[in-house]
């Protein structure tokens, strides 16, 4: 049993956690929810020893207080395993090396028994139904595959009776994989471990958790059995106010002008070519199960993955697939919000301002010179409009919470007014309030004429937000749903159909 008592954390002089109490009981799945920036990841990083809590905090393992900050060794000894929001994988290493880090069977001479490690890793992956080559370089895996790898690693290292802490493990997963992960977690808890689980998908939190803790502005505002919450009451606890309609009214009155067209688009990763047309103001969903090809499409279209055949038309310009590059695509009026926020979406060490204006620098130029004051003012405006907190343009991106980073990246692209914007998992790790706001921003931009290609495995969102959706299976488009046929259930069944 792990008990957290009076955990506070102040970054510089800003309180991020204030007197949080939380007890993790064996056999129980504990859901932790809260708005973006409410302190969930920080709490978890304190538990793993990455951050030191402020004075006065206490963390007990099996009744004994641990020395703070917790050393990796103590965390390990207390049976705690972590799946962090930023995963923590060594990209230059192989799957096997990453699987085994932190816990080795040593024979004499302090030597790792690699044969045994390999056997065990293969067994684990098999056990959890995750197909990964043990010698593949982690850098070559998709984000989903990486997430699975980390989850399996943590589960495999948990011997039973310990504690598993997962920070948004399901965020990149499609609902099928997420469901399987959840049922695995349930089983892990049932055999006597405790599970702390963070997610912004409130439905899944309620369905799997025994108890739920809600954080708001670093304080525990609600803590109770899962059964005593409904999604709406959770949301109200998180936001402090009741939530109105989640999804905006999507205008069905699209323009007639085709602003984005794919013609016979294909590449190594697609089994069959894709053709698709988007009219101005349209929001078209693209979905599929993990690694079915839909998650490559954004990068193919943006010229970031090799494409062999086909053409892409944006606005009035047609570009041969072979000529595509991010520059060419952008010049034609296309934008891309990539799924990997940490490394592809923004530069963590650079300021919010620098990130947000990185694709619109032309706007702030006069006579070949950047007007820095004008730029700062514009960014301050955008940060207010997108409710990016804290609204300090000079902060490096790294010091914003995940959800706020995501909003900043959306601001970066939407402020460019593209003909068409590809969004890849744009609400990944975004809290309900922010999500609703992002949907609203998307809908507004659509009304103003921007076309969206909404690539995501969140079927619920696609069903509500999009006017049409194409479904990928086995690396090819298998189906298009539109109008009344575009429902969550249809999307799911199309994705799952063999």
């Amino acid at each position, binding site marked *: 049993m792990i008990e957290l008592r009076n955990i506070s954390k102040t970054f510089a002089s800003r309180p991020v956690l204030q007197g949080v109490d939380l007890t993790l009981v064996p056999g129980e799945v504990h859901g932790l929810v809260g708005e973006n920036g409410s302190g969930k990841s920080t709490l978890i*990083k304190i538990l793993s020893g990455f951050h030191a809590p402020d004075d006065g905090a206490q963390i007990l393992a099996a009744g004994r207080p641990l020395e703070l900050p917790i050393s990796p060794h103590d965390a390990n000894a207390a049976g705690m395993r972590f799946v962090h929001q930023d995963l923590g994988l060594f990209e230059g290493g192989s799957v096997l090396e990453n699987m085994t880090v932190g816990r080795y069977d040593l024979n004499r001479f302090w030597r790792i028994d690699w044969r045994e490690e390999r056997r065990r890793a293969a067994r684990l992956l098999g056990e959890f139904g995750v197909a990964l080559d043990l010698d593949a370089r982690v850098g070559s895996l998709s984000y989903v595959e990486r997430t699975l790898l980390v989850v399996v690693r943590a589960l495999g290292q948990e011997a039973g009776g310990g504690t598993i802490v997962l920070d948004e493990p399901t965020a990149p997963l499609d609902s099928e994989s997420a469901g399987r992960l959840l049922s695995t977690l349930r089983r892990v808890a049932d055999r006597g471990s405790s599970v702390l689980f963070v997610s912004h998908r409130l439905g899944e939190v309620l369905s799997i958790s025994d108890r739920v803790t809600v954080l708001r502005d670093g304080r525990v505002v609600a803590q109770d059995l899962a059964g005593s919450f409904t999604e709406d009451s959770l949301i109200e606890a998180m936001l402090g106010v009741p939530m109105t309609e989640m999804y905006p009214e999507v205008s069905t009155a699209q323009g007639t002008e085709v602003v984005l067209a794919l013609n016979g688009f294909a590449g190594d990763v697609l089994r069959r070519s894709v053709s698709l047309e988007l009219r101005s103001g349209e929001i078209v969903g693209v979905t599929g199960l993990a690694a079915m090809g839909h998650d490559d499409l954004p990068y193919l279209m943006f010229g*970031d993955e090799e494409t062999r055949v086909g053409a892409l038309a944006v606005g009035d310009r047609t570009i041969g697939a072979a000529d595509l590059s991010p520059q060419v695509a952008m010049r034609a009026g296309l934008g891309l919000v*990539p799924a*990997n926020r940490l490394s*592809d979406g923004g530069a963590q060490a650079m300021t919010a301002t*620098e990130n947000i204006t*990185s694709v619109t620098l032309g706007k702030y130029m006069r006579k070949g010179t950047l007007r820095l004051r004008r730029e700062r003012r514009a960014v301050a405006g955008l940060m207010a409009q997108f409710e990016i907190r*804290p609204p300090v343009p000079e902060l490096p991106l790294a*010091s914003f919470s995940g959800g706020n980073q995501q909003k900043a990246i959306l601001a970066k692209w939407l402020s460019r007014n593209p003909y068409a914007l590809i969004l890849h998992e744009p609400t990944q790790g975004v809290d309900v309030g922010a999500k609703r706001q992002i949907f609203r921003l998307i809908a507004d931009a659509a009304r103003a004429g921007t076309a969206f290609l909404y690539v995501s495995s969140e079927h619920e969102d696609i069903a509500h937000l999009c006017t049409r959706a194409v479904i990928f299976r086995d690396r090819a488009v298998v189906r298009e749903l539109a109008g009344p046929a575009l429902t969550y259930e249809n999307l799911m069944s199309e994705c799952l159909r063999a």
Partner: protein
Amino acid sequence: MREGTKIASTTERPPGNPEESGRRNRGSWQRLKAEDIANRYGLVGAWIVLIAVFGALEPDKFLTLSNFQDIFSSQAVLVVLSIGVLPALAVGAIDLSIAGTMGLALVIVGWLNVLHGWPIALAVLVALAAGVIVGGINALVIVRLGIDSIVATLGMGTLLAGIAIGINNLAISGISTSLIDAARTNVGGLQLVFFYALALALVLWYVFRYTPLGRYLFFIGGGGGVARLSGIPVDRVRAGSLVFSGLASAFSGVLLAGVLGAADPTVGPSYLLPALAGAFLGATAIVPGRFNVWGTVIAVYFLATGITGLELLGLSGYIEQVFYGGSLVLAVVLSRLASRRTQS
């Protein structure tokens, strides 16, 4: 708004570490400012302290206009070399061939102008072209082939040092007086070469701070796919910064030819470590955490001031090396400690 990339501290200290990233926020603007000042101007402060100490010890000789004029003039070539490599460092390419390129340019000028009687302008052009070619080869190897910059430019630097000696193994004197005048003419007590360094510094500062290119450099240096996916022509900018580094190094070699009025093929390599020391120490000041122009300029002059002070005290020899190395370490340590103090 800041110029610059996060330099190596990324690996040194993981992102998301309290001290590194999340220092500032709404509630602590005062703190931000105090910390910022300690952080940004720590090196300037150290410089002032150094001047004060030597000034107290040797007021008549040290605290004179001409002493500072002399320091400014004599380090100008090193300043050019140090700031010339900043764009390459910013995109994450550590160019160790700068000193070799400088030596090569120096020898080319002497060899063509004196031994082959070429007009000085032509000799200078060829030397600069050689710098561009070296930078181009570096770019090819590092950007196109994706080879680690340290090993590639370490090899290139050695190769160039060999070639410089191969071209002419003897110091050549008698370089055209027009080049000498262009470098050494005295303007307000300072040699022209100082103004070239200043001009280059201004241009680079402008580029870093006020142009998209400056931003791009640091986006690229940050790593990951951001730069590429933001439509920044990553390869071209990286290649360009390496070519620029070659050109600037060759330019410093040409200036050195003018300053010395002679071309010695063994001169180059001794400039490598001082130039890097300037660039890396500079990255702890003015825009801490990023390679930046004024930090570099100050770092070079800070180190030179110390050496000059010691010399005026009659201390030369190994003590200079001890001071040089020691003050390099101390300067970075103190500026880090200062910024910590204000933080807590």
